[in-house]
Each structure stands twice: as structure tokens, then as C-alpha cells.
């Protein structure tokens, strides 16, 4: 059975030895982040900071709770979903895809039954600075909340739309939100609420249950509810509760909820910040203002944060892991729903928001162009620069196999395709544009346009390894495990359900 809250998930990590609680005081001012980064780059346990130095608070900080093991990043999340341990990556994807195909509508609960309402503060009791928001990297523009789900209105769904946008704390009631046009919630603000001069109601949900947290990075089609996909993933309805000061509904088991609104025609500084590509991103920009109207929370709230920038290269963090374990299966479902017969869509492990690998057949000429065009104009528009297409038989979770496919099958003469050269929008969260090119456009995208590219690393025929049958390979792996090699290293000891690998 899937877990129902962040706390249950942390307990699960504890039972498997992947959690470490620190009782000694640790400062929110870089110390918690530094300790978390060490764990991220060294593949250590998830740290929980029980006592925060320099502030009177009952809150605890949790560093990158969803980071998975470097060798098998899906392991922890699989346990959170109630799956058996030891699944291969492909089997894990199959199971998650099956759940995403069976969405479950959320159910509402009364306020008195919602743990996130254990404490309610409104009016003059609202004080953002009473919480230990971490200062994450030296050089950041300020203290951040960057591991949360933002709930905003959506006229097409009853439950609003969920997404994630980093938030820089300014004072006791204000923060700036990084809203980049092109994404659903920012578009709602820039092209709907702000032109009408209306504040956009928003709730920032911190420490939601795992399946909720994982949907924030999914691309859910317009008119569909993230809450229903979170329920499908969980195989049970997600409990929602109405906000105190607006009509939005938020996950009831969340640790902390900031209710408020984004003011029209108002901006505050945001950034710089060390973001997901592993480099400090600047310059400081003007971004919309989130004003807090109410704060509700559980007793002793656990506030997760992500040390962004540590999830590139070999390192993993919460966001890089959630992309791999949730956004990948979700993208696979979405592409299949759009009529593309893809086997798997998987973010590239070393830079999970810049490159994706898609294992697919090529049923007709021009198929890859259509597939790339579809993605680059929908969920892959702003952040993703490259797609790599490999044969359906290639495991896109295996970077070596993907690298081999690029090296041996992608002909520079015919298989590298640049899309919309210098014509496509790009978020300023990149390091290949100069600060002048990024500019400071009002709606967040870079002033200069860019290009995207896809690489066709599929074979023209059957170039898979045929020197041994699948059964022989499996017997070899069994023999090697008998000799003492770690079974987790092998890919054929876990039969992929319902399919032949």
C-alpha cells in the first residue's frame, strides 16, 4: 500500500536505513544545505534536521527526501508506492504507467480531519519568517522554498492545477515566485489574471505526500487534474481540504500550506539561484509577488528542501529523482495517449531537465520529426533542449546503452536535426546564453530565442546484440549472482511483466 504522507515516507526510509536524524542544532543558513549536498553527492542517507539553530521553531528541515540511490534511483519511490523491492527500472516504469492509466478522483475531507490544519494562522498571526527557510547556496539571492507544490485556479478542473516554481522569501508575508511564461500557472497569471488586474489565488503546499509531490513536474493535459493522477499513482484517492481564505483545495496530509495570492502589476527581485543544471543562474530578475494570507500546518512541520544543482552529473537530488521516477512514466503515458507508440520516455540521468531519451519504433517515415515537433511544442518547449531517440529494444534507463546508440547509430550527416534555429523560446535558466541574450523580458522567457535538437540514434535495421539469447544471458546472470556478484547489477533477473525484453 502506498504511503499517505511525507511522514509515513520518512518512516519508510528510516526502516531501510536511508534516513539520518540530527538532534544537534544545525543552521538554516547554508549548514543544512551543505550537509544535504554531501549526502547527495556521496549517496548517503536522507538527513532530517530536528533542531534548527538561530530560530525558535518547532519546524524541522528535511534535505532532498526523494533522492534515490545513485545506482537505482527508483528504489525509494517504488517503496513509497507500495511496490516490492528489487524491481528493475523497466518493470518499475511498467507498474507506474499502469497506475497512471487508472486515475482516481480525489476526495474532500473536513478541516477538522485534515492534519495540515492542526495549526491555523491568519491575519496578523501570519509570519513567514517564523519558519526556517533554508539559505541553500552561497550567492543565492535569498532564502528559498523550492520543494513544494503550487495550487492555482483552473477553470477546467474542480481541483485546480498543480505545479512547482521556486519561491524566494522577502519578509513576513511576501515572496517572489519564479513564473516563466509558457507553463500553465504562469500563463494563467500573465495572460489572464494580471491583464484583468485581479490577484490570482494560490496555495503553496510544502511537504505534501509523495504522489502529490511527484505530479508537480508532470505535464498533465489541460482539463485533467493532477489530483486524479496522484490518486492513480497512489492507487487510492488523495485527500483534499479547502483553504481557509480562498476556494482552492490542498492535500490534507501536507506539512505546511501557505495560502495567498499573486498580486497583479507588482514585482519583487528574484534570484540568482543555483538551479537544476548545476550552475548559478543569474542575473537577479523581477518576478511576481506572492502575498501570504494564511498559514496552516501540522504540529512540528517537516519542511523539505532541495539542494538544486547537486542533481547533475553523478549526483542525485529530489527533483532529478522525481523526474526519473514520475515525470518519465507520465511522459510515456502522454505520448502514447497522443498516438505515439513509444516504449519509454526517460530523462537523461546526468541532466534530467535538459535531455530526454525516448525508446521507440519508427512506424513510418517522418515519425521522429512528428514526435519531436509534438514534444517541443508542448511539455518540452521551455526547458528541454535535446531529445535522443533510440530503438524500442534499447533500455533508456541504461546510460551506457544510450551512449553506445548515439556513438554508433547517429550519423552526423543525417541524424542530428535542429529545430527552429534561433526561433524557439527558452527559459533564462540556461548557461549557454549570455546575460544580454537572456535579458529581462516581462514574462520570464529569454529575450533571445534559441534552437532545439533531436538525435536519431535508432538503427536502420536490427543491430541489437544477438550473440546470446535472452535465456542464456539470464542463466549467466544467475550463475554470476551465485558466485557472489550483486543481483541488483543485472537486468534480466526481474522478468518484465507482460512483455518479453
Amino acid at each position: 500500500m502506498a504511503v499517505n504522507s511525507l511522514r509515513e515516507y520518512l518512516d519508510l526510509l528510516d526502516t531501510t536505513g536511508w534516513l539520518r536524524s540530527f538532534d544537534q542544532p544545525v543552521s538554516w543558513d547554508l549548514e543544512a544545505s551543505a550537509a544535504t549536498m554531501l549526502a547527495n553527492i556521496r549517496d548517503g542517507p536522507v538527513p532530517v534536521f530536528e533542531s534548527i539553530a538561530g530560530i525558535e521553531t518547532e519546524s524541522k528541515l528535511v534535505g532532498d527526501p526523494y533522492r534515490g540511490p545513485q545506482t537505482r534511483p527508483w528504489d525509494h519511490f517504488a517503496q513509497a508506492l507500495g511496490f516490492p523491492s528489487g524491481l528493475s527500472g523497466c518493470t518499475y516504469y511498467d507498474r507506474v504507467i499502469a497506475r497512471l492509466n487508472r486515475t482516481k478522483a480525489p476526495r474532500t475531507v473536513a478541516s477538522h480531519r485534515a492534519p495540515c490544519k492542526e495549526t491555523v494562522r491568519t491575519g496578523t498571526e501570519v509570519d513567514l519568517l517564523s519558519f526556517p527557510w533554508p539559505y541553500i547556496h552561497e550567492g543565492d539571492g535569498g532564502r528559498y522554498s523550492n520543494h513544494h507544490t503550487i495550487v492555482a485556479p483552473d477553470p477546467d478542473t474542480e481541483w485546480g492545477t498543480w505545479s512547482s516554481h521556486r519561491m524566494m522569501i522577502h519578509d513576513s508575508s511576501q515572496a517572489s515566485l519564479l513564473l516563466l511564461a509558457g507553463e500553465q500557472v504562469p500563463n494563467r497569471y500573465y495572460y489572464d489574471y494580471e491583464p484583468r488586474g485581479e490577484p490570482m489565488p494560490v496555495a503553496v503546499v510544502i511537504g505534501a505526500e509523495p504522489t502529490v509531490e511527484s505530479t508537480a513536474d508532470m505535464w498533465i493535459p489541460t482539463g485533467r487534474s493532477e489530483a486524479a493522477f496522484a490518486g492513480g499513482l497512489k492507487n487510492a484517492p488523495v485527500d483534499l481540504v479547502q483553504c481557509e481564505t480562498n476556494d482552492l483545495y490542498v492535500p490534507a496530509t501536507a506539512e505546511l500550506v501557505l495560502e495567498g495570492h499573486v498580486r497583479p502589476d507588482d514585482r519583487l527581485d528574484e534570484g540568482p539561484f543555483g538551479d537544476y543544471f548545476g550552475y548559478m543562474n543569474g542575473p537577479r530578475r523581477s518576478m511576481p509577488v506572492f502575498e501570504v494570507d494564511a498559514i496552516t500546518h501540522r504540529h512540528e512541520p517537516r519542511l523539505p528542501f532541495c539542494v538544486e544543482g547537486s542533481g547533475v552529473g553523478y549526483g542525485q537530488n529530489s527533483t532529478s529523482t522525481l523526474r526519473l521516477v514520475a515525470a518519465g512514466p507520465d511522459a510515456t503515458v502522454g505520448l502514447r495517449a497522443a498516438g505515439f507508440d513509444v516504449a519509454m520516455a526517460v530523462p537523461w540521468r546526468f541532466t534530467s531537465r535538459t535531455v530526454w531519451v525516448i525508446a521507440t519504433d519508427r512506424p513510418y517515415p517522418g515519425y521522429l520529426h512528428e514526435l519531436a515537433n509534438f514534444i517541443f511544442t508542448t511539455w518540452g518547449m521551455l526547458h528541454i533542449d535535446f531529445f535522443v531517440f533510440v530503438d524500442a529494444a534499447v533500455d533508456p534507463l541504461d546510460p551506457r546503452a544510450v551512449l553506445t546508440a548515439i556513438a554508433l547509430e547517429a550519423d552526423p550527416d543525417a541524424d542530428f536535426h535542429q529545430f527552429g534555429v534561433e526561433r524557439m523560446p527558452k527559459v533564462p535558466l540556461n548557461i549557454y546564453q549570455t546575460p544580454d541574450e537572456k535579458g529581462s523580458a516581462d514574462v520570464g522567457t529569454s529575450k533571445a530565442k534559441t534552437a532545439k535538437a533531436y538525435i536519431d540514434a535508432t538503427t536502420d535495421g536490427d543491430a541489437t546484440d544477438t550473440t546470446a539469447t535472452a535465456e542464456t544471458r539470464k542463466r549467466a546472470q544467475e550463475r554470476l549472482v551465485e558466485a557472489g556478484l550483486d543481483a541488483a547489477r543485472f537486468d534480466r533477473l526481474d522478468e518484465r511483466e507482460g512483455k518479453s525484453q
Partner: protein
Amino acid sequence: MIPFTQYVRGLAGDDDLVRLDGPFEVPVDVLAAEALRASGPALRFQRPTGIDLVSGVFSGPDQTQHREARPWSRLALGLGLEPDATLVDLLETISTLGPTGGNPEPTYAGQAASGTDIDVQDLQLPQGETDMWPAVTLGVASVSTADGTHWAPVHGSVVGGDTLRVRVPDALSSLVADGTTMTIALGVPPAAITTAYLLAVTEQTTTPIQSCGVTGTVPLVPTNGGLVPSATEVVIETTVVDRQPDFRSDRREGWEYVVASGPLSLSVESVRATDTPVIPISPVGRPLADDIQLTGLATAATLYHRVNNYWGISPVEWVMLPAEAELGICFVASDVLYGGFEWQLANILFSFSSLFDTVVIVDEDVPPQDFGRVLADVWLKSHPARDWTFSEPDAPAATRPHYRTDNETGSRLYVNAAWDPRWKETYIAPRVTFQNSFPGNVRDVARALWDESDTGPEDTTESGASR
């Protein structure tokens, strides 16, 4: 010089070799391939005949995970380097084994392989599921001419008790005629097989080993074919009986993608082995196979030496042809001296090797052991329109990739994933790292927290090691 058996014992002593006891219901080459694919240890196949096989001894774990060991760590030990030797240490060591411009004084010693009561089929070399005959891999062919002894890698099949069919570089074939004696050495010191690969990939097989650095480090012994290392495990003396046999192998060892090769039919005259011989094998054609690693390292050593002796300075930090990319991409870390230097660097690499037609350039401060960073920077630092540069489509196809095998011309590609030297310093985004993102006192606090913890991550390197 480290003899092969001592090298194998060393790997076992380092817990980097696992012993499997026969019989083997699964083909040995499949076991070897699966261990490599899983980045596992080297394997020793213990057999009742007393003739053991070992696999993975010249390979290593892939770099798509951070690990304590590198793909080149085993070979570095075999060449007498320290366990923490860098890639550049190894590349420079490999270069010293080749032509020196002088004639190092050879050392001669008695032949370790003295037993003679076996034939070549008794070696029970591995035979894959789809193979017609047992395979000879990781061998060194030795022939003698008036200039001296010539070594080359050899790959082939045991087609009978007294017949081998092999492929050798054309340069070696050109030195022999029907009736010429040729010795096949199996289980030679790592320095010797590395030399054979180095000479092959630099097309210097016709250079006698008496003019190579290896002669000064590996004790030798004369055989009917030519000099071989005295510590060779199995010495097969043969006579060339056919220089144009009808023989093809579906699978090629790595060096065969670099130089032209041709078949020879050999009549086996004698097989001599040590008392308990150990023979290296490579699962040719499978990911991370030993022959691919040897070819990649020998080629990288050559390219590293050449590009750093070309412009009067040495701007290149390292060159790598990773087995993870099957030698089809060349990665290079360099100081980009000036705008346009990246073009020069990529194209000179294309000039010096025909294996690949994609080059990726990363900044000089990217360490080769942090391949994860390389696999991120390729996409992060390069502008999708401006930094992926294609040549005119009239270049010959590279030899390693599968495309354009019909001699059609096409484009080459280099990816510039290094900072543009023309950029202002303020344009360069600082990396998020433990060192850069936290002041010293905070780093000390973070380290102390984990050091005091029983369950903390190991304090190895900043990049960390996989569990």
C-alpha cells in the same frame, strides 16, 4: 614488468577478481560479457584441465556511475602504476612502450611455458553460442624479419587440432609469406599486449620491438616466430600456410576497426604452456569488452601525445575514447586557447584517427574520472544551434559507427561544451559544488555532522562513490 599470472593474482588480492568453478553450462564468453555489462569484477574460470581462462582483466567498470575504480584501473596496475593513477598517468605510460627513437637494451630470460604435451584444442578456448569454432582473443602475434621482431594483436579461431585461422593487421601480413613461422602468445604481460595494440593503432606494426620501450621492460625469449615475453602463459608456434584463406569473423576485436586486417591460415607446430596456464579472453563484440578498452586506451594515448606536441604547447588535459561509447566518440578536455581553437582541435583529432566522426570538447577543469560531469556538460554548456558544428558533407565515414558502411561521404560533428574564451568573465556561471557553494566553516560543520554519524556517507571524494 608484471607477468600475467602475477597480475591476475594481484587482481584477486584486490578483490577485483571472482573465481568460478567449472563445469560451465553457460558459455564462458556469455558469462564474461554479462560480468562486464554489469561493471563487475574480472572472472577466473577454474577448470579441471588446469588450464584456466580469465576475462575482464583489461577492462573495468563503466563510468556511467561513480565508482571507486576506473575503467583503466586494472590495466594501470598491470603496467606497474599505483592504484590511484590518473588517466593521463596511464596514457603517458602507454606511450613509453612504443617506438623510442633508440634501441633499448633487451633482457632475455628462460621461457616459462615449457610443457609440450597438449595441442591447441586442449586449451578449450571459449566458443560462443553462435560461434562455429573456439575463439582466440587477446593474442599477440610475433614474427621475425631482418629488422627484428614485430608484434601485432591477433584474433581468430581454432578450426582443428593443428590449424588456426586468424586475422592480423595487414602490415604484419605484409611481412610474412607462405612458410613463414609465426608465434602466437597468449597470456603475455600487460605491457606486451598493450604494446601490440599501440603499434597496431599507430600503424607502426612494421617497427621492430627492439626499437620500442617495451623491450627495456619486458624480458624476452626467442621462439621460432620471433621474440615473445619470457613470462608468456601459452606459446603457439605456427607456420603460415595460406595468406588468403576464405575466413571471415562476424565479430571484430577493437583494433580491427582502426587498421586494415586480413586473414591467415596457420599450421600449429607446437603448443607450449606453463604448468598451470592462465589465458585471457575477451567477449568480442559485447559492451565494454577487453579488446575495446585496450584499443580505446592505446588510441587515446596516441592522440594525447600528438595533440600536445603539435602547437608548441600542451593545451590538452586528457583524451578519452570511452568503451561506453564503443570508441565512436572522442572526448577531449582542453584549454580553449582562443576563439576557433576548438575547431582546430576537433579537426586535428579527425585527422589523426578514423575511428570516430564525433568529437566532444569540454573545459580543461573537467577531470576524466568525473565522466558524469562530461555527460552533463555536453548538453548544458553547448548552445543547441551554435555549438554543434557540422562539417561539409564530404568527409569519409568513420570506421567504428554502423552507418554509412558503403563508403558514402558525410558530415563530421564537433560539440563545443567548453566556455567561449571570448566571453567576459562575468558571463561564466559558477558551478554549484560543495567547494563553491559553501564557505570553509560551513563545509567543516557539514563534514563533522556526517563524520559523527554511524550511517553517514563515506568521506571519499566530492563526487562520491556508489554504494
